[in-house]
């Protein structure tokens, strides 16, 4: 079936947060900190206030009223302390966007700057072990005797990998439009990945009961995690609208998005692996170093996939965090698992080479029976089948393992493999199913961020009801609908779909209305290790002249339960793989050591893959029967595609050139310099 919202999107009728036509709307434009650390001594708004069309300036000089326990990233204009360069420290409100922008530029801020520290390093004195890493995993785990395992190994590797700051760059920039009704109710059209949670956070920040706030996110142009938590623009819109008594729109520029919508923490990851003469792991250690801000602790779960992937009698994982004068990192497609698996799967490749083993075989030999960390049985685990199917389709058996020997003219050719994993969870959700003029209306506060969630949910409801999809109408993107979790963590379809199935079952029983809340059902789920798995294969060509890397083939084979919609799934898989290609070869945000903040904050300089970079990409899946997940038997697919892709490409670059680049992205500079 076609996407149910396809027509409104291609005809331009789909309305995004900043596009709702509202009478008397005004505009707020933020003022951002120009220092990375210090104090605001004075904000002089007099010039701005005298400019045409200006309605007001918000700043710490007259702090707007907010809840005392507001999240520190959202507690706008409450403190004189500056936590990072680019922080929103004031805002101008005017009748037009241009006037607001000019007025913001005219606001004069005096600072008392302090020395800042924006550099992540493994010997930073501020490193510490967080209590938990996202969402609630222990920071450290240890089983067996690691040093003994390494000592008895026939082959060991001890390698360090780094990944840079990465930014989500959704097509639709972050924007919000806030309106206060006469009765004190607040309506926010927000570009957000979850209307229910966004409503709760905005209400909490403003000190309002949740039922006085409504969030509408009918269409969202991508997010990848950056819209998964309430961002400051939404709070700014609400505060500004309250201050001027008129609707206020805030639309961040692309540059501002780099500053205040979160980013993937840079990582430094050390891996020590040992393998015996039979190719079985004797020890696996994965330590991740990462950063957070001084405002909020965000501890990414980088080393957690090592707790899932391979059977090793000695297994140690650890996370160390340092609070720097930087913005708070946030979610980016497969937070934790993605950079973690890049390092783990690169190190596994190094181990295979060091031990003289085939990289596919090494992974197969170390496939565990139960989840290594928890000992729990897997609900289903078909990594080996993915590796075998991928190897067969990719022509892996014809591969000569010797690195750096295949050449076509100036182009060195190599292939690489990496495994993928991502948790397959679900969260409690509500849904309502009703009959409307012979058709069916499904209501749930889910969000379609461009993944096709509306279509997938329509299909799930239609299949449950046993009717044609065109008789089912799914309404979502509104916090006044039955509460639902965020579109994130590859949990959306599993969570919302579960509630929709139950609501539809209820409707069929009583013929009138079905109302579901899966809180009890989810809580009663058997304790199992629930993960999707996959295998990524890459063929690259590396110019011996220029160091340019071109990916000539990418193949992903996934085992992600029952696939609800083949077309949407393929889009998700190849989208994730393409994003992984960008991570491998080009994406990087520069940190400005001297002034703080980030540099190259636009799409001309933060390079994401263009069509020309994706020469041949293929995603296939094994149809997995796993009834213990949810009523659909499905696993999320939003993130499994990116995990492992960068490692497969990096491993292929090594195979092509004989040189191992351990710092992403793998640029011509890093290929060329060691060769001379």
């Amino acid at each position, binding site marked *: 079936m076609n996407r149910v919202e396809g027509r409104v999107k291609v005809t331009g009728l789909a309305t995004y947060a900043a596009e709702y036509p509202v009478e008397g709307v005004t505009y707020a434009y933020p003022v*951002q900190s*120009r220092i990375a650390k210090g104090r605001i001594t004075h904000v002089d708004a007099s010039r701005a206030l005298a400019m045409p069309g200006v309605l007001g300036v918000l700043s710490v000089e007259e702090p707007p009223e907010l809840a005392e326990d507001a999240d520190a990233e959202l507690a706008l204009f409450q403190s004189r302390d500056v936590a990072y360069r680019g922080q929103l420290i004031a805002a101008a409100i005017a009748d*037009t966007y*241009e*006037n607001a*922008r*000019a007025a913001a*530029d005219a606001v004069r801020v005096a600072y008392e700057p302090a020395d800042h520290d924006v550099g992540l390093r493994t010997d930073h004195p501020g490193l510490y072990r967080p209590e938990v890493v996202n969402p609630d995993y222990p920071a450290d785990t240890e089983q067996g005797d690691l040093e003994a395992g390494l000592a008895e190994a026939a082959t060991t590797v001890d390698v360090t990998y780094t990944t840079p700051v990465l930014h989500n760059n959704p097509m639709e920039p972050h924007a919000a439009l806030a309106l206060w009704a006469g009765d004190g109710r607040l309506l926010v059209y927000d570009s957000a990945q979850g209307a229910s949670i966004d409503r709760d956070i905005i209400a909490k920040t403003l000190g309002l009961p949740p039922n006085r706030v409504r969030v509408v996110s009918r269409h969202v142009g991508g997010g990848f995690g950056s819209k998964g938590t309430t961002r400051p623009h939404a709070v700014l819109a609400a505060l500004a609208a309250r201050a001027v008594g008129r609707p206020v729109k805030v639309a961040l520029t692309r*540059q501002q998005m780099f500053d205040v919508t979160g980013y993937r923490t840079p990582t430094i990851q050390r891996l020590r692996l040992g393998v015996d003469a039979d190719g079985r792991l004797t020890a696996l250690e994965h330590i991740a170093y990462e950063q957070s801000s001084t405002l909020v602790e965000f501890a990414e779960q980088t080393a957690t996939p090592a707790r899932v992937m391979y059977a090793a009698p000695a297994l140690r994982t650890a996370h160390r965090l340092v609070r720097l004068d930087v913005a708070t990192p946030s979610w980016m497609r497969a937070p934790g698992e993605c950079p973690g698996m890049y390092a783990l799967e690169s190190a596994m490749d190094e181990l295979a080479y060091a031990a003289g083993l085939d990289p596919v075989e090494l992974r197969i030999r170390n496939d565990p029976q139960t989840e290594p960390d928890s000992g729990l049985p897997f609900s289903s685990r078909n990594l080996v089948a993915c590796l075998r199917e991928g190897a067969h389709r990719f022509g892996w058996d014809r591969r000569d393992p010797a690195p750096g020997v295949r050449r076509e003219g*100036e182009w060195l050719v190599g292939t690489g493999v990496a495994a993928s994993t991502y948790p397959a969870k679900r969260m409690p959700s509500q849904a309502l199913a009703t009959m409307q003029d012979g058709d069916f209306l499904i209501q749930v506060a889910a969000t379609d961020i461009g993944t096709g969630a509306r279509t997938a949910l329509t299909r799930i409801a239609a299949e449950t009801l046993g009717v044609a999809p065109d008789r089912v109408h799914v309404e979502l993107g509104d916090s006044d609908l039955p509460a639902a979790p965020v579109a994130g963590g590859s949990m959306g379809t599993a969570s919302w779909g579960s509630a929709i199935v139950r609501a539809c079952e209820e409707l069929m029983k009583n013929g009138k209305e079905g109302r579901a809340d899966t809180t009890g059902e989810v809580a009663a789920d058997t304790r199992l290790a629930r993960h999707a798995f996959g295998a990524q294969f890459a063929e690259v060509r590396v110019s011996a*002249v*220029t*160091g*340019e*890397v*071109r990916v000539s083939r990418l193949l992903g084979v996934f085992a992600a339960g029952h696939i609800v919609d083949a077309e949407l799934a393929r889009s998700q898989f190849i989208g994730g793989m393409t994003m992984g290609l960008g991570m491998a*070869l*080009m994406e990087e945000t*520069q940190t*400005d*050591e*001297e*002034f703080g903040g980030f*540099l*190259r*904050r*636009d799409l*001309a*300089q933060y*390079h994401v*893959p*263009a*069509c*020309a*970079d994706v020469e041949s990409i293929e995603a296939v899946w094994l149809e997995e029967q796993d009834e213990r997940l949810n009523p659909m038997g499905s696993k999320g697919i939003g993130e499994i595609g990116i995990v492992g892709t960068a490692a497969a490409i990096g491993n292929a670059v090594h195979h092509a050139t004989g040189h191992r680049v351990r710092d992403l*992205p793998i*640029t*011509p*500079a890093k290929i*060329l*310099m060691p*060769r*001379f």
Partner: protein
Amino acid sequence: MRSFEYARADSPPDAVRRFRPGAMYLGGGTNLVDLMRLGVAEPDRLVDVSRLPLDAIEQIRDRLRIGAAVRNSDLAADPLVRARYPMLARAVLSGASGQVRNMATVAGNLLQRTRCAYFQDVSRPCNKRRPGSGCPAIEGDHANLAVLGRSDACVATHPSDLAVALAALEAEVHVTGPAGDRIIPMPGLHRLPGDAPEQDTVLEPGDLITAVELPAPPPGASAYRKVRERASFAFALVSIAAVMDVRDGIVAGCRIALGGVAHAPWRAERAEEAIIGGPATGAAFLAAAEAELAQARPLPRNAFKVPLARNLIVSTLEELTP
């Protein structure tokens, strides 16, 4: 908002007449409008020259005259250009995206400004944007910046691909201005930063580029190659425009221009001198490339551009050797 005057010119003399201090000419706007949004460019007046009758490509005897307002996509698609100057078409097509090329003009392409991250951010110092404020790129983010001809005041690169090809083709830039008409041979239009990096070119206020004129194609084979980590829509790490004429194994003529390495398209004259008259061998090309790059002053994060440029010169010349 910051207001400015807007005037549309209907002839080159009219454009020059409408120009005044603080004004800027507006062509396709693909760079200038961005810079205005960023607050980098703050003209008091825009003189729109995009509709001047300067959008023709004409053959005049054995030369080709390209109007200043010709769109990049039209230039690259022109049958005469493709047949006689294929390297020029390749250079133009390697720049930007289809959408940008549909808007961008020949003159605007030559006059586009550096993409150095500090230059583009008004909240940070930059000698090119605000003379005397400093150059943080030298200690900071310079991985994409200059290794040749840079100064202690500026390490910016000129981003154009078209300009590199025009430098190798020895194009002439036709200019009209308050002081009358003149012709500037490429690559002389662009200047090195020295201690006045705010001046990208030798143009005086009010000078308007009206055309670019190409002499007859030089004998031999030519190529344009651009290196970037993404296959499309990225500024060059290093690019090369090369023309070489080999007769009986001896190099009769050779022109090399490099992009992405300097404040201006870089004509590699030392390399050319070393090659012309000698045997067309890889060893000779390598020696020539090294002679040229001996004058490079790389910084830690852009040092890779030196071996990259060297490889590119050798490889491209080998490719052009029959």
